[in-house]
């Protein structure tokens, strides 16, 4: 059951990746990478349940946090051309 | 006061994540929460007033309506994406808001993004710029339904 759902989401990742590679503007790419990150959070949670080891939720939580910070860092660079 | 509240919030978050209560872990939790609170208490918790508790309950009462709107919004996005002709006519809408606090503006922006057919692009002082996916949704934003609900929470 969980691996079936994970496969569906990974097929979705392929579509999003297509947009990340082709994307006419840089903002399309940022949005796509953000979506890949959110899908990765879900897949890691699902894999934890596939192995009957739901302690993996810690990694999913870390990823949810890091993904948000990464997106903001990309945007800050694009807007201001610097990070501080 | 702000410092102590931040410290308590961080400590509660630590114990929610770790779930262990041995001596070493509790000590290190207190130390790390102190360090983190020292660095962050200025960014966290803008205004503390005990009228805020009432607002939290009002906000919780607002959530079911929001969740229903989110489901409607998603069914609509699914319909737009999966229908072969793509019935869209995007438009930018600009409106004013009467909300005062930053929390209220954040809640409004996120609610607009999650409800049907509209995404917040910019909130600057009291101006909101919204991207609506069809003309009807642009009209909905001008009617300010969401804003009235959040104004009632803020009051």
């Amino acid at each position, binding site marked *: 059951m969980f691996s079936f*759902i994970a496969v*569906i*989401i990974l097929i*979705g990742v*392929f*579509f*999003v990746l*297509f*947009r990340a590679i082709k994307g*006419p*503007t840089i*903002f*399309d790419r*940022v*949005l*796509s990478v*953000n*979506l890949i990150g*959110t*899908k990765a*959070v*879900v897949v890691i*949670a*699902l894999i934890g*349940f596939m192995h009957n080891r*739901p302690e993996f*939720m810690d990694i*999913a*939580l870390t990823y*949810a946090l890091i993904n*948000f910070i990464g*997106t*903001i860092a990309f945007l800050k660079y*694009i*807007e201001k051309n610097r990070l501080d | 006061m702000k410092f102590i509240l931040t410290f308590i919030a961080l400590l509660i978050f630590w114990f*929610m*994540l770790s779930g262990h209560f041995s001596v070493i872990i509790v000590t290190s939790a207190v130390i790390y929460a102190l360090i983190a609170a020292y660095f962050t208490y200025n960014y966290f918790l803008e205004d503390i007033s005990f009228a805020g508790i009432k607002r939290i309950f009002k906000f919780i009462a607002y959530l079911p309506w929001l969740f229903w709107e*989110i*489901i409607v*919004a*998603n069914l609509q*996005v*699914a319909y737009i*994406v999966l229908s072969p002709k*793509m019935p*869209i006519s*995007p*438009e*930018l809408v600009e409106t004013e808001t009467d909300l005062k606090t930053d929390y209220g503006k*954040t809640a409004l922006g*996120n609610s607009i*993004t*999650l409800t049907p*057919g509209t*995404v*917040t*692009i910019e909130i600057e002082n009291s101006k909101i*710029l919204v*991207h609506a*996916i069809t003309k009807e949704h642009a009209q909905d934003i001008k009617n300010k339904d969401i804003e009235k609900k959040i104004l009632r929470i803020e009051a």
Partner: protein
Amino acid sequence: MSILDVVTLILLLAGSFFMLVASIGMIRLPDFYTRMHAGGKADTLGQGLIFLGLVVYEGFSFISLKMLIIFVFIFIANPTATHAVAKAAYKGGLKIWSRDNNDSG
């Protein structure tokens, strides 16, 4: 199959359906701002439903508490990230797409 398993399965299938819709929308929609609708809404609800399904499957425990934290965080962070990207794109001078001048696709 108990009733909880059925609820879990329904929530997981609905969630993965919405996430797939978000991905297809990323390909099919014509410009950045409309893609944002797919990415901002469908993906948020899809993730939320999947985590809700996993919470139902797990029952009441520490793990489900963590998943509820992720659930709340998603509903705050995902629209905020979408809004941040949109603001950057608007400031960067990206024009919106309409039926009349469909050159930016």
